[in-house]
């Protein structure tokens, strides 16, 4: 029952934006260009979606008695007592079949003293039984646990069946899904409201685009596209929510691409501007590169596992008809994937419940390929190194788009998928993820130091923070990475909206060197921006951070970044060879604080540098500042309580079973740190990170806030480094040389082959045909036509001469009878045999 309620609520939240899109795009096209109806419709859809999502979260929590939170407190107490390790390792591995699950459920019932601690390992078993209410009911009784069921899955609609391949629209609802739904709908609602103010210039029959020029030097004049913007936003929300709700990896791919096309449409919203259309193309094409890897991963998954679904398929009796992907990879008690030592292949689990699949084993390297393939998609979508270059260019879109699509949600989809698909990733893939994330975080942060466009700084900051999330996931901090995803979504959307407010107030001026001292003109924006900056920098007041009201002095970024850095430190301690995975993020934490405060000081503090801009700028209207205020509260305190707070516990409520206790190294492999290991270094890592953040903040104040240091002089002295960074590490030039130019060379070569050989053949044959045709025509005209005309003329004249016979004289006619008879008889006599 709860499952159906949740499903229906999320279905409404998911489909409402689609209805909105349909109504807005057609209604807007035929309606008035000055009407705000489309916007309010979009807001209504997404706000209803938020209400549904929030209700779903509440219902879900009530259904399991908020066991996730209680469990975590319990768990945290145990952790604090430092005596918790033992029973995690004695529990059997996650079962593959229902029978095993039942047996396990019985086994789980016996150690009644710690039923909650059992729960994380049991989540897969819970998922196995989750589809059937009666089975679930029994389970609850035997296990005596109120938290038995937190995962719901099923099928909305079957699209098609090709042999044993079933393509369907499924749903997979767990705590992560619900948190993401709530977060996405809430932020989207705020941004929709903000956009009503920001996009109001489009409410006109004739919009003059000052950044797009015609060939004669005039500005482009076009009808306003207010309705279209909101239609696209609605479509985007539909796609993003579909991606989060998806119950199979193929469905994820479908919505992955839908999200991509929405991004394309929104980046290229000012399609008359060359830079905007180029940026839209760039984003789309770079994403395709990643999607190519995604497709390879999908093929491997389909070939060897025979299904795309995450969760098991059960029939009405609760029997597993088809095992889901998450239960197919057998892991030993310690969390390592079980490999057959003889041939290096991995047994595919739940074979009995997987009748359509011919493969019973999968080579280990193909597991790595599948994982890397799917992660390649995430690289493209989340703008990770080496496909990061599209995101800064994507800032050509309107600022609300940057806030919603390119910071808070869509780019986070890559991180979300990495987290969602986590059970399928083996250690080697995770290490790749960690390094990619680490490099991305550092490279992007360094570029952000020298960027002067206010939106570009935030764009690089986004890439850097996404790198952090990937790093967190890669170093086995499943919760840490996704925690940072949610907190970042709040404070980054806040900062983008603030920058949008600045740009709106300064009449589309984006260059920070022309600003300065703006806090006097726009205090609300400045204040909320400061909150965001402090949050992302990870600032806190040392010594005052603690439970209760001590949380007032620690912003959300502090908690989530702390979690990532701590996990990284624990990882590095376990695997010293990969020390960079801690050093670089730590440095990056300092850089982050530096460039974010640089941005704030540059923009809001000091004295005005360009009086023209300053004199004309103004605070934004309430419809724009309202969302800023709401978001600033959440940006600051959404992570209240840190890793013991409700947000973190909600996210990690349904984390993969083996994550919390870590994975010990086997035969030279990597050691994955468990929660205890992370907790042990938490204070140490937190201290390092805080020191880095404060030093970055101080440096920023010194250079840009105090006015005592000549920044230009430093820039001149470090010219080489500055140039290198300002040119974004020359990535664009590198790709140009590596891919674009060779492609052009090959293209020119092919074109010349075409032109010189194939065209020559074609033209030659055409010329020959023409020649033959000319001869043919001459023959036709002279000989054939001549003959026909001759025949025609001959018959015509013969016919006319026959008229002479028909004299009309009766006497002659009768004479002809006689003559005819005589003639015929003559013929008869002449021819007939005697």
């Amino acid at each position: 029952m709860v499952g159906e309620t949740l499903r229906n609520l999320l279905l409404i939240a998911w489909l409402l934006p689609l209805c909105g899109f349909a109504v807005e795009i057609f209604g807007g096209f035929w309606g008035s260009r000055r009407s705000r109806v489309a916007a309010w419709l979009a807001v209504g859809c997404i706000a209803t979606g938020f209400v549904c999502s929030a209700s779903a979260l509440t219902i879900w929590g009530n259904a399991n008695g908020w066991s996730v939170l209680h469990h975590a407190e319990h768990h945290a107490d145990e952790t604090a007592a430092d005596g918790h390790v033992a029973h995690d390792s004695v529990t059997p591995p996650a079962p593959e079949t229902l029978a095993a699950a039942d047996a396990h459920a019985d086994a789980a019932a016996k150690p009644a003293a710690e039923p909650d601690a059992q729960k994380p390992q049991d989540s897969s078993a819970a998922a196995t039984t989750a589809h059937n209410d009666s089975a679930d009911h029994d389970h609850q009784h035997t296990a005596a646990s109120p938290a038995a069921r937190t995962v719901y899955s099923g099928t909305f609609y079957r699209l098609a069946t090709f042999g044993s391949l079933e393509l369907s629209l499924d749903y997979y609802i767990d705590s992560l899904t619900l948190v993401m739904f709530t977060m996405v709908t809430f932020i989207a609602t705020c941004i929709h409201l903000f956009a009503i103010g920001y996009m109001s210039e489009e409410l006109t029959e004739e919009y003059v685009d000052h950044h797009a020029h015609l060939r004669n030097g005039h500005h482009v004049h076009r009808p306003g596209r207010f309705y279209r913007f909101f239609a696209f936003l609605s479509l985007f929300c539909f796609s993003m929510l579909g991606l989060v709700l998806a119950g199979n990896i193929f469905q994820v791919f479908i919505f992955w691409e839908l999200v991509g096309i929405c991004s394309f449409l929104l980046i290229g919203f000012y399609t008359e501007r060359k830079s905007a259309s180029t940026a839209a193309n760039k984003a789309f094409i770079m994403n395709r590169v990643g999607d190519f890897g995604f497709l390879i991963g999908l093929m491997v998954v389909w070939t060897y596992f025979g299904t795309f679904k995450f969760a098991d398929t059960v029939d009405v009796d609760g029997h597993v008809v088809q095992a889901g992907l998450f239960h197919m990879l057998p892991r030993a008690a310690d969390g390592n994937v079980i490999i057959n030592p003889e041939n290096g292949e991995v047994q595919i689990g739940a074979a009995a419940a997987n009748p359509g699949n011919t493969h019973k084993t999968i080579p280990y390297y193909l597991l790595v390929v599948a994982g890397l393939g799917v992660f390649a998609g995430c690289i493209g979508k989340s703008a990770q190194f080496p496909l990061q270059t599209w995101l800064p260019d994507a800032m050509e879109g309107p600022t609300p788009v940057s806030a919603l699509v390119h910071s808070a949600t869509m780019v986070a989809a890559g991180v979300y998928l990495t987290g969602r698909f986590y059970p399928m990733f083996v250690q080697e893939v995770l290490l790749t993820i960690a390094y990619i994330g680490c490099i991305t975080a550092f490279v992007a942060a360094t570029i952000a130091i020298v960027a002067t466009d206010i939106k570009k700084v935030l764009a690089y900051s986004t890439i850097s923070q996404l790198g952090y999330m990937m790093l967190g996931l890669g170093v086995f901090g499943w919760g840490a990475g996704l925690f940072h995803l949610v907190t970042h979504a709040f404070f980054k959307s806040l900062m983008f909206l603030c920058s949008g407010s600045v740009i709106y107030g300064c009449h589309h001026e984006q260059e920070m060197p022309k600003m300065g001292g703006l806090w006097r003109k726009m205090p609300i924006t400045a204040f909320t921006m400061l909150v965001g900056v402090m949050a992302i920098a990870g600032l806190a007041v040392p010594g005052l951070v603690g439970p209760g009201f001590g949380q007032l002095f620690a912003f959300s970024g502090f908690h989530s970044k702390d979690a990532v850095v701590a996990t990284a430190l624990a990882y590095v301690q376990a695997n010293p060879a990969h020390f960079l995975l801690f050093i670089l993020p730590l440095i990056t934490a300092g850089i982050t604080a530096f460039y974010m405060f640089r941005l704030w000081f540059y923009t809001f503090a000091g004295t005005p540098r360009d009086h023209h801009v300053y004199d004309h700028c103004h605070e934004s209207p309430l419809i724009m500042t309202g969302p800023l205020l709401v978001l600033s509260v959440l940006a600051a305190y959404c992570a209240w309580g840190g890793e013991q707070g409700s947000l973190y516990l909600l996210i990690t409520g349904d984390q993969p079973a083996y994550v919390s206790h870590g994975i010990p190294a086997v035969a030279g492999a990597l050691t994955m740190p468990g929660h205890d290991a992370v907790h042990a270094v938490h204070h140490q890592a937190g201290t390092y990170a805080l020191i880095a953040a404060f030093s970055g903040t101080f440096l920023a104040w010194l250079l840009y806030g105090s006015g005592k240091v000549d920044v230009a002089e430093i820039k001149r002295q470090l010219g080489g480094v500055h140039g290198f960074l300002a040119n974004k590490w020359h990535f664009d030039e590198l790709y140009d040389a590596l891919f674009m130019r060779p492609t052009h060379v090959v293209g020119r070569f092919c074109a010349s082959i075409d032109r010189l050989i194939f065209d020559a053949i074609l033209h030659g044959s055409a010329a020959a045909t023409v020649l033959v045709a000319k001869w043919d025509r001459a023959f036709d005209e002279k000989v054939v036509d001549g003959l026909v005309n001759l025949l025609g003329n001959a018959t015509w004249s013969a016919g006319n001469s026959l008229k002479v016979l028909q004299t009309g004289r009766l006497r002659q006619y009768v004479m002809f009878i006689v003559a005819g008879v005589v003639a015929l008889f003559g013929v008869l006599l002449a021819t007939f045999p005697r």
Partner: protein
Amino acid sequence: MLFSQLIQKLIQDTTEKSLPLFSVELCLCVTIVLMLLVRLLGADRLLPACVVAVIGAASALACSWMQYRELYGAPEPVSTTFFTGMLIHDSFTVYFRAFLSLFLLLTVALTSLTGIPDEEDSPDFYSLLFGATIGMMMMASSNSLLMLFLSVEMASVPSYAMVGFLKGRKASSEAALKYVVYGAGAAGVMLYGISLLAGVLGTADMGMLSERLAAAAAGGSGGLGDPEIRTASLGILLIMVGLAFKLSLVPFHFWCPDAFEGASAEVAGFLSIASKAGAFGLLVRLCVALSGAEGTGPLMTAFGCGLGFVACLTMTLGNLAAYGQTNLKRMLAYSTIAHAGYMVMAVSAMLVMSSSAAGAASAAEVTRSMEGLLYYLFVYMFMNLGAFAVIALVRNYTFGETLDDVRGLISQSPTLCVVMLICMFSLVGLPPFGGFIGKFFIFASTLKSAETEPFMYVVLVCGGLNTVFSLFYYIRVLRVMFLEARPADARPVPLPFASWESAFTLTLAAFVLLLGVAPYVMSTTANTAAQSLAFFN
């Protein structure tokens, strides 16, 4: 046998056997009497003559349909002589009866639509029409040389009157006069031939002709050296000349263009189809009667080749002479001549094949050639009547029948133009129209006959060439109708699409198309009729 017994037997034979078999003709006779009576009683306001005519024609069609059903059920082809052997009743006869009844129905319908006989004259006109039709039916069923002459005259005399029916028009009277005189001459020639043949062979019964001819041939050399054969051949030739007049074969066609031009289009259509059909029935009867006996093969083959030669002359002259015509009826008269030539090809092929030494082996082929002739006649009825109907309908608006009257007609009456197009294409013999199938049958049997007699190849090539020739003048009419602009001074032809006239012409066109795409509708019937001719009995 006593005379009274003879009379008794004759009366019994007539009432019990002959009259039922004669029911179709009797229907038409009764209709004639009824029409005249109705006018005599002054009831023609209540019961117009055309209604009586339609009912009579329809009941004749029904009678022939019943006769056909009766014969169709028999396992063997049935052949019965009646009226003391003067007439013969078999499915060939019934086919022609049905054909002529149907055509009569269509003609009555057309005349009542175009109103060519006014109310005053219509009993007279329909009496003539029905009388001529009775003659034609008897032509197809005659079994005696005497009946041959009588039936031809019975068909001809009302035709003369019909040609001259447009009283007060000089051209009409002149045409009728030419027709009468020419017909009288031809009848004289034919009568002379009959007397020669009957005299030499000692019988007028057509069922005995071939035996007697064979006996005569057996006595002498069997060639023209033999005086009996020479005389008989002359007799046959002269009879055929008489039939050639009815068929308007070259060089006995001179009456045809003049008579058609003078007569109204409806009468011309009737003459070009019904008169031809009857004459063909008679020609086939005569040929079948003469051929098939031992020893007369070479003679009959020579007559077959002679018919082929005449067919070539007829086709070529008919087509070529049609070229320069501006009067549509006159053009169609020449077209009729040419088509008679095509159809004579079939008779010639039949004669050649049935006289050949190969004999019985080709009986199926002989039957097929007759099937081709009968099929062609059936198609010809629709396509030629369609063309004449269009001319008659246009004439009612423009009072003219020349090419100028139909110039640019497409802008005013597309229905008529489309019907004309279908009819003309079918007359040329283009698929998918019925004319193509008919021509195909005839050409195929001519090709078959050429295996025994090489001269038939010449006939075949001539027929093929003539098909090409004929294309030009038919297309010319269509070009004038479709592609040229309607002259400003031309009288308009505002024929609405939803009218009886359109429906009538479209029905004809639909049949032309149907016979082109579904030949089996009619070919099996034609085949059954042809089989009853009992070759090589």
